[in-house]
């Protein structure tokens, strides 16, 4: 069953635009993305910084209003939800941010932070909320007596556990994890990832897991979507992406990641140059400026995602 259905979503940001000039150049952060996430599944969204993956994540839970396209969650349109409907949707969709130091209000106790969602939505009787918070604290691997502590008394990994508990407090079905472990030490990353996996089984959660770290994504995802300059260029099951990537950008991404197996021959695909500006993306295929396979058709025709089974690639030369 499809829980989240994104259809041709676009997000433009107007830059500049001051007192006299109304609009500056437009940044096309997300350019016509369609994605589906099934209930209970984890979709990994990878791409380099600035490719629009965080913007996509924020649009999905409507922290940002998308410019066009539709997002349906459990059959309900998120983009056009009324303030009342949106409030109800907030209970079902939550987000975990990258920076655990910025994610918690320094003047709020841990207990108050976690309880806030329950207060907002009137979940549990006021007298029993405290018990529910303690239960959540224990569920994410913290202690009941952390209730009264302030964020500065915790390490990054502990804070991320608190942030997870806060998101879970409203009983969501779907969580956007926006670079949720990127700011943590590698040893702590594994703990938090395993916590997320345990919680997924325990509470039947669906994740949109956004990351630039391919190993992390492989560890946690059922399916992976690769994003480049506001577009999805390849999407497939995690194993397919890692074992038989078909888009030249995906191949380059995978070969840039260090492989822990020294026996494996190093892959040769590499890219040169910088990501083009999202203010003025190249004509045709956005990746053609850095692609070794690019020819004149790539400059003229913007490739669409073409599916073979569940493996979709947006490339004119995917077979090469």
């Amino acid at each position, binding site marked *: 069953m499809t829980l989240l259905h994104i259809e041709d979503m676009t997000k433009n940001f107007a830059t500049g635009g001051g007192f006299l000039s109304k609009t500056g150049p437009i940044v096309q952060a997300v350019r016509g993305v369609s994605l589906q996430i099934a209930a209970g599944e984890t979709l990994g969204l990878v791409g380099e910084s600035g490719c629009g993956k965080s913007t996509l994540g924020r649009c999905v*839970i409507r*922290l940002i209003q998308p410019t066009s396209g539709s997002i349906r969650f459990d059959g309900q349109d998120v983009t056009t939800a009324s303030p009342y409907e*949106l*409030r109800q949707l*907030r*209970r079902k*969709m*939550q*987000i975990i*941010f*990258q*920076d655990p130091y*910025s*994610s*918690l*209000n*320094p*003047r*709020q106790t841990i207990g108050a*932070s976690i309880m*806030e*969602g329950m207060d*907002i*939505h009137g979940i549990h009787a006021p007298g029993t909320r405290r018990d529910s918070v303690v239960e959540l604290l224990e569920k994410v691997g913290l202690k009941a007596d952390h209730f009264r*502590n302030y964020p*500065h*008394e*915790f*390490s990054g990994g502990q804070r991320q556990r608190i*942030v997870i508990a*806060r*998101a879970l407090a*409203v009983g969501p079905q779907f969580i956007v994890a926006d670079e949720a472990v990127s700011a943590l030490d590698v040893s702590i990353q594994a703990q938090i990832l395993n916590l997320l996996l345990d919680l997924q089984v325990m509470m039947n959660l669906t994740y949109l897991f956004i990351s630039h770290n391919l190993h992390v994504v492989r560890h946690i995802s059922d399916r992976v979507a690769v994003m480049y300059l506001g577009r999805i260029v390849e999407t497939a099951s995690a194993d397919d992406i890692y074992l038989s990537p078909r888009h030249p950008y995906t191949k380059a991404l995978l070969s840039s990641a260090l492989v822990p197996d020294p026996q494996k021959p190093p892959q040769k695909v590499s890219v040169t140059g910088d990501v083009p500006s999202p203010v003025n993306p190249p004509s045709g295929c956005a990746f053609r400026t850095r692609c070794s396979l690019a020819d004149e058709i790539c400059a003229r025709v913007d490739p669409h995602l073409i599916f073979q089974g569940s493996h979709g690639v947006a490339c004119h030369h995917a077979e090469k």
Partner: protein
Amino acid sequence: MSKMTGVTYSSFGKQLQLFKQPKIFVGTLIIAVLLVGGLFAPLIAPFDPNKQNLDLAMLAPQWLSGPHVLGTDPLGRDVLSRLIYGARVSLIIGIAVALLSGFIGVTLGSVSGYFSGRTDLIIQKIVEVMWAFPPLLFAIAVIAFLGQSLVVLIAALVLQRWIPYCRVARAQALSLRARDFVEAARALGATDGRILVHHIVPNLIPTSLVIGTFAMAAAIISEASLSFLGLGVPRSIPTWGSMLSDARAHISTSWWLPVFPGLFILVTVLGINLLGDGLRDHLDPKLSRAGNH
């Protein structure tokens, strides 16, 4: 983890630690002495501050050898008693102005910074217009229009003193608005009002406290200046400023008349500024980190 085990003292104990800093200790001590003096003026002052006795006019300070410790003025009123009663006016005005302008400034500043856009534009235009007035001239104009009273004086000072709070609160609200915890609160379904009250304003309190001490000192100086010009509170209430003003005519013959009120203003403002300075140092993350660990 080491941080967690390090925090063993209670939050009350943490507050007490504050007073180990000399600036904060001295500042608080001065303000506390003045508060007690002003509060219990009728018990402490040796004479009625307004009781005239022309037989005893212009007595030089008798120090501990007579009843008029700091002398008397041209109408025979006891200088020390008038100074003690004068502390009341200074403190009432200082505290009232700091609190009221803080309330107005932080409210408008946080709203301005949080919502930005049109709301911000309007509030910032008001700030710029108010900021353009010379402060003392503005207060004189307000008092000239509305008449002389304690309430009008406080209102006239509040009308200018909210501006520094507003500017700082706005700048901080602008940066807080972009922090992930505010975004997380929005994702949880919190309304703008709730975010302002629970997430923005509590984070503005420490800096506002520092601005508050400076606003209080500035208000006390302004009151003294206005009283000196004869535009402060009504003449029946003794204030340090009006004592200075009265002393002007006798400055060459009776040194004690201008010196003691001047000294009181100086020490009070110094004390408040010391406290403000100490609090600012304490709240500066770089300094406090170096001090705590």
